[in-house]
């Protein structure tokens, strides 16, 4: 339940006042970071990751979503595998015409084949999704992680900078970007989404690190003389990375549809790039006359987003069962009607508000 918006100072500035979180009875120090009470068999200790992987391989949701994503990646690299048409070839005489043999999805306003464009659009849209997510996760994860670990003014500074970024309207940022950068590649859009997306990931990473820092085994490791770097790398990062990965997979979906919104406002990808976002925004006002123009690219976008969110969901579930739960012990102690303190996995808690 601890979430990225958990009161920062309350937890971080534990040194400045009475301990904020009432953690239940101490758990035994022998417990390895990975071996959760509810999850893996206790026979031989396994890492968090192998536990999770063990679960995932048997999860049909994971397998299905992984299959879809694999397919999409293949299409993004080699669109000609399943589409032999030309996404640019336009024949105005066919404008907005419905399906016909060889053109199963019909034509768009310019008389281009919708099927070919949907297939070719995968590349730009998925590139934007994956690269923007990777960028935001890396930047946000690092900044948020350091903020959570070191606390103090560094933490405050970061949180307030994140506040500033949250306050900036998307289209203002988008228009500025579009006017400054004239490249017609996907990179300005990727850069822009990273710039918008990192604060969200930073908050989550920060929350995760703060929670992990409270864990007994970390406290113990520090008491035994482990240095900052070692503590961060060996003990905190493995636990804090999980929520970041989970939120990132969900964010990936929203980033792909953010690209569509940017195109709608005239600030997204530019031709000759073919992308779902460009086609969706072009189709959005022709719903009455040519619903097929909207249906197919929007459907492709939905399936992609769905696949990535399902993947994130499955990963989260796997990690949730595999992760240590210092909370369970204390939950018994807390009276009914009082929430249990933090579980180690804050991922499902509050994602940041979506950008509209």
């Amino acid at each position, binding site marked *: 339940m601890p979430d990225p918006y958990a009161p920062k100072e309350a937890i971080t500035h534990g040194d400045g006042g009475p301990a904020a979180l009432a953690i239940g009875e101490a758990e035994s120090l022998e417990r390895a970071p990975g071996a959760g009470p509810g999850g893996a068999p206790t026979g031989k200790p396994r890492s968090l990751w192998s536990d999770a992987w063990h679960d995932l391989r048997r999860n049909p949701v994971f397998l299905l979503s992984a299959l879809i994503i694999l397919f999409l990646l293949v299409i993004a690299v080699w669109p000609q595998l399943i589409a032999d048409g*030309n996404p640019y070839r336009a024949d*105005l*005489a066919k404008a907005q015409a419905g399906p016909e043999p060889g053109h199963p999805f019909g034509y768009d306003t*310019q008389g281009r084949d919708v099927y070919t464009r949907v297939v070719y659009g995968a590349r730009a849209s998925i590139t934007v999704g994956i690269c923007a997510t990777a960028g935001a996760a890396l930047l946000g994860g690092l900044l948020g992680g350091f903020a959570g670990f070191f606390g103090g003014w560094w933490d405050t500074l970061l949180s307030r900078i994140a506040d500033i970024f949250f306050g900036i309207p998307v289209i203002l940022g988008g228009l500025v970007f579009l006017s400054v950068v004239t490249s017609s590649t996907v990179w300005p859009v990727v850069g822009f989404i990273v710039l918008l997306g990192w604060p969200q990931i930073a908050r989550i990473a920060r929350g995760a690190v703060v929670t992990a820092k409270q864990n007994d085994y970390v406290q113990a490791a520090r008491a035994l003389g482990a240095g900052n770097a070692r503590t961060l790398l060996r003990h905190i990062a493995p636990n804090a990375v999980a929520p970041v990965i989970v939120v990132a997979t969900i964010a990936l979906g929203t980033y792909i549809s953010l690209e569509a919104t940017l195109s709608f406002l*005239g600030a997204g990808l530019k*031709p000759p790039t073919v992308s779902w976002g460009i086609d969706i925004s072009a189709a959005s006002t022709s719903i009455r006359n040519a619903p097929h123009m909207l249906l197919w690219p929007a459907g492709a976008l939905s399936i992609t987003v769905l696949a990535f969110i399902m993947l994130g969901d499955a990963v989260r579930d796997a990690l949730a069962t595999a992760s240590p739960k210092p909370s369970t012990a204390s939950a018994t102690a807390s009276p009914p009607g009082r929430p249990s303190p933090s579980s180690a996995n804050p991922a499902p808690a509050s994602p940041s508000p979506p950008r509209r």
Partner: protein
Amino acid sequence: MRGAERAKWGVCAVSVVLAATACGGGVDTRGSGAAGIVSSSWGDPQNPLEPANTNEVQGGKVLEMIFRGLKRYNPRTGAAENVIADRIETTDSRHYTVTLKPGWTFSNGEKVTAKSFVDAWNYGALITNRQKNAPFFQYIEGFDAVHPENGRPKTKTLSGLKVASPTKFTVALNQKFSSWPDTLGYTAFMPLPQTFYSHHDAWVKKPVGNGPYAVESYTKGSVMKLRKWSGYPGPDKARNGGIDLQVYTDNNTAYTDLQAGNLDLVDDIPATQLKNVHADLGDRYINQPAGVIQTLTFPMYDKRWNGKNSEKLRRGISMAIDRASITKEIFRNTRTPATDWTSPVLGTKGGFQDGICGEACEFRPDRAKELVKEGGGLPGGRMTIAYNADTGSHKDWIDAICNSINNALDNDKACVGAPVGTFADFRNRISSEKMTGPFRAGWQMDYPLIQNFLQPMYYSKASSNDGKYSNPKFDKLVNEANAATDRKETISKFQDAERVLATDMPTIPLWYQNGNGGYSDRIAHVALNPFSVPVYNEITVH
């Protein structure tokens, strides 16, 4: 199954929300509820509604309702006809004497006199009042003194304007301009009441004029309510009780509101809805010529577009554009393929001549490919067409032009559209000469004269010569045309000048834009004038 029951309950909760949404609508009927009032779509005017400061259609709509000037352009023919002017006389095309008709007043009771005009024009020309239409007064003697290139003005009034009596004033121009009286229907030349100067802030909040309507209330950015002025002395009295101008940001929404019966009149139908207008509106759809021409302007300051043989390149690009298909499929016949650089609303008497552009404006893909090759090919093998992405749904037709060029040149990526985020940015790039390829240009006439379609855009260093085109031959012919006293001679000189354009192709004429609109079954007698503004005063309400 309890679970299933609960799920059902959940679905119901959602439908209750939706049903509540449904209950919210359909009760009141917006502005159209009041008897005799017409609700019409509007865009938020950019500038305060001062006549000499209003240079776009939205503000122009209001001024057309609340002001009458010396002349007015006939809503059907576009001919300049006397309204407040009794006669405008000259012997040398330079010195004019204006005599006013008696009996005209502003809606606050103040008389419209020669001073109402002279003061208003002086106000409009004075640089410190930063009126955007100030250049319209540039032909009047003394303009440089009140409107210097830089520094403070030397005086506050135009030396060329003299009040002779309450109903008579004289105008001295700084050059011969035979068709000058016909420019006086433009909004910049409207008279102003004294309260405009004495209570300026109040006036801007609620303008007072002398037209068939008076402003009842004005909520900026939202709605302006205009009501019939019963004391209006002119012949063109309002035939309805009033007009409510509703601000819409998205013309799609305005059209949807018209369909739903919440709005009476839309004068800008989005291109994507044009396919449905006949089904939705039947004969309540208007599509008629207006004085607007769309062109692609070349940056003549760029050597790559203005080198040796480049006119072949420009001509070739023009011939690669399938105007007929684009106007049919994208614009649904709300545009007509252009064959010259003016507009059919001028009429053949006014100087419009079909086909001056000749073969260059015909779709000949094979010849186009040859010409582009002869002209040295596209610079770097690529070209972009720049447009602003924020308003006007230009993307569809720019993409269609590029596709047409690409098909003709047999190269998928030869031409791409280059959207610019905001109109301001687009204009800045044009005025700072940063364009690297052709860009879209639309010209809406200020007054229905052939001069207005040629001189401001192609005369060397003219105010709207965005491509920086310059040809002494063209300039000479325009000068001769303006000095000619005979109307016929003026027009034939302008047409000769236009033929120079046909050789040089500094811009590609694309199509003549129609005004289009639609209206509800509550109202009748709806028409657009040649400026594609609805003729509000003639609308009747059932």
